[in-house]
């Protein structure tokens, strides 16, 4: 899922115009699961904005709404009425959600209330970790299902770097060395011989480095 984190209230206050009607718009999908922009967070952030507004005399009028998916037209339709009533939208969707709203409401300022961080998983309660950086040509099969592009701090495809200490990454000692994990995993599944192969340079043009990406499925077009 997409993992995001809330911006601080002072950051939001900087962004939002005084004396305005604000819709705090949540999204019921990824950002709900990562506890950043679902119904509950909409309620909490709205409350904090109302407190800040009263305490500092900012003149906000805050309303709340959470739709199932902000990146999907079908669900955005459910927000039309609420969006039309306000001056600005503070979206608690991921970056894609914010842009989907902005693209459909041409004259409405739409602001991002979250920092969209990464594609990852819930590792344990309250801890999310990054797993995939959407490189566009997945090589997970070569590495026992552990992504060196994302989880090795040096993105080494022919690792390890040699700096790992006690299973920890030398760049980020708070994270395990991805290459240590790859080694153990390949050993467990009986594929250690994969490490003998030298992986050629990766095609980065399939990644964001090749410009913004688009997928077109002719079989689905109308």
């Amino acid at each position: 899922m997409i993992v995001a984190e809330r911006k601080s209230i002072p950051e939001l206050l900087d962004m939002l115009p005084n004396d305005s009607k604000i819709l705090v718009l949540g999204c019921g999908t990824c950002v709900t699961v990562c506890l950043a922009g679902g119904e509950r967070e909409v309620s909490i952030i709205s409350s904090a904005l109302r407190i800040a507004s009263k305490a500092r005399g900012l003149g906000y009028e805050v309303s709340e709404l959470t739709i199932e998916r902000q990146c999907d037209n079908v669900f955005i339709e459910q927000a039309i009425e609420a969006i039309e009533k306000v001056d600005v939208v503070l979206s608690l969707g991921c970056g894609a959600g914010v842009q989907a709203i902005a693209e459909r409401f041409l004259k409405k300022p739409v602001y991002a209330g979250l920092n969209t961080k990464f594609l990852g998983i819930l590792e344990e309660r309250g801890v999310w970790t990054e797993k995939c950086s959407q490189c566009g040509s997945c090589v997970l099969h070569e590495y026992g299902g552990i992504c060196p592009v994302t989880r090795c701090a040096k993105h080494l495809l022919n690792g390890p770097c040699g700096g790992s200490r006690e299973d920890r990454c030398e760049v980020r000692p708070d994270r395990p060395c991805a290459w240590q994990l790859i080694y153990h995993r390949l050993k467990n599944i009986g594929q250690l011989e994969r490490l003998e192969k030298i992986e050629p340079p990766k095609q980065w043009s399939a990644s964001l480095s090749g410009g913004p990406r688009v997928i077109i499925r002719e079989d689905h077009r109308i």
Partner: protein
Amino acid sequence: MSSSDKETTIVAFCCIYCAYAAADLAGSMRLQYPSNVRIIRTPCTGRLEVEYFLRAFENGADGVLVAGCEEGSCHFKEGNLIAKRRVNYARKLLAESGLEAERLKMVNVSAAGARLFTGHVREMAETVQRLGPSPLNRAKTRVQQEIKP
């Protein structure tokens, strides 16, 4: 009770298994404590969500006490520990929003802790007195003062 106590409100979320019973006992023991505290009985402090604390301030509280069981003796095992984390998060949000974090406080009181409970209420009343009414209520208080003879 001081004059500023009359103008301020403290909301105390009290767990039914401990602090609420302690407040009851304080009454039976005829212990005096600030009368501007409004006690809200809760099934467990772990039932309280971050927005409950924020809403209390939005609705005019000048201070909020969250009173749960002593650590290790929660009726639901860890409700009070959950509450502690939520209170800490809410304090952070309050500070970011321009309210003093000390206006919200978690305390632990056993059902027998009547004196401890009244002490906590008094302490919160002192904090509120020192900080003055919540900035959310200041405008209101000014108006009230203006219309007073």
